[in-house]
């Protein structure tokens, strides 16, 4: 089980409330965007509880394919996805619930005595730093490279999920050797050839990154043409051809 990272003030408070309420006979609702750590916090509150997706559990109850009364505590993921919330919660009346949701509605809220609203990662700077460190360490171990967190283009659009993805993507790219690059290109081209791509179609997959890198590296078109050893008119033609992709 992962530990809920609580380095920022708001996370410390949340963890404190979670710990205080874990032993009480009350239902807890964890609210937050995708990837903020709702499920991890729920597991910190009820480490031994079974975890169910709300929609699946609702279907199970309707179809009577399992006996929910056997449980004394449950973690329910995405409770906002349940269609008939009142009936659903009535069926689980005698079970201690910790539920997660991205959307808050009155009919859910009114059934939960404790509500824990986890802010997005961008508002929890200390937690973000700790998570970056954790994922960077993990990636360094797997790919056997050194990563400077400053060099990573971090994506927080879906908080921890996109953060981890961006760090690992960056690490994979950094760890690629010539052989790996050649192999992955070969794999990539093979899939494209199966879709009837021509030589001309495939050329842009080489030329766009090449021109992007050269644009970053060299100051002027003159310098670019000299260093790449191609004619200036040819370079200008290529830059015009891919202007949309190069200006993104």
């Amino acid at each position: 089980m992962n530990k809920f990272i609580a380095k920022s003030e708001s996370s410390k408070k949340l963890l404190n409330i979670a710990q205080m309420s874990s032993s009480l006979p009350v239902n807890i609702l964890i609210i937050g965007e995708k990837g903020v750590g709702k499920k991890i916090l729920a597991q910190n509150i009820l480490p031994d509880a079974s975890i169910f997706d709300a929609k699946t559990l609702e279907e199970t109850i309707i179809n009577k394919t399992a006996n929910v009364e056997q449980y004394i505590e449950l973690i329910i993921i995405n409770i906002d996805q349940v269609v008939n919330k009142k009936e659903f919660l009535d069926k689980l009346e005698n079970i201690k619930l910790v539920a997660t949701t991205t959307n808050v509605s009155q009919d859910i809220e009114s059934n939960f005595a404790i509500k824990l609203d986890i802010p997005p990662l961008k508002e929890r700077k200390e937690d973000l730093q700790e998570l970056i460190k954790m994922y960077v360490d993990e990636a360094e171990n797997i790919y056997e490279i050194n990563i400077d967190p400053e060099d990573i283009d971090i994506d927080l659009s879906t908080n921890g999920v996109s953060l981890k993805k961006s760090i690992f993507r960056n690490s994979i790219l950094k760890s690629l050797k010539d052989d790996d690059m050649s192999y992955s290109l070969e794999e990539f081209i093979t899939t494209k050839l199966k879709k009837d791509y021509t030589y001309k179609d495939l050329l842009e997959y080489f030329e766009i990154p090449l021109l992007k890198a050269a644009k970053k590296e060299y100051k002027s078109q003159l310098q670019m043409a000299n260093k790449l050893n191609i004619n200036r008119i040819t370079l200008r033609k290529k830059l015009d051809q891919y202007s949309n992709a190069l200006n993104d």
Partner: protein
Amino acid sequence: MKDFYEQLIENDLNPYLLFDSNGKVKSYNKEAEFLLNFVSIKELFQLAVSNASLNFGFNHKYVSLKYNKQSYYAILVGYANDDEIALRLYKVVSNNTHTIKDDKLKLVNIFSLIDLSKNSTLLHSKLEINELYDISIPEIKININDFLLCLNECFSIFKNEDFISLQVYIKIGEYEIINQKKCKIVSLEFKSHGNLSFDKSLEKTLEAKAHKSNANIFFDHNAIKLELPMIL
């Protein structure tokens, strides 16, 4: 004979008050004395004057009134001259004994629940609370889930305020008979500097939530008072 009628009124279960033309109380019975703890003389005088008949005589009116825990279903206003006006209120009486099912009650420290509710409801709020707690209050039996739901609503009302005081104390001299046992009453008084503004529907919701958690709730212009029996 006159003494007998006076005694009858004095011992009536319904409050009776006699005002002079300036709104001063000239006479009242035991029940009215109790009622005056919760409602001002001015308010009752206004009630009498605004419901008096056009000419001398008596006027009954069926109204729904609530002062503190007591509800009234009707009033009688009477006057025989311009100097005096009498008001009698008719109590809604229920002889149901107050029983609470014990199976969902759990012995708990009330201050822990207040802390829990305060921290979770006001997590992102800047409200400062001056806490005046009587820490001698022992652990009491509470329906934790329902009480927290009610407490959360109370804190939510003050979410956008800067400062409130919260006083928690045992009421002196007041008791409730629960499951045929005499229980003291714990009062939680949320007080704001400014006037509170919330609609009647929220008042009703809070009353229902308080009732479900075996508590009573009272609203003032700047305060909310939650009272619950100390079941030990």
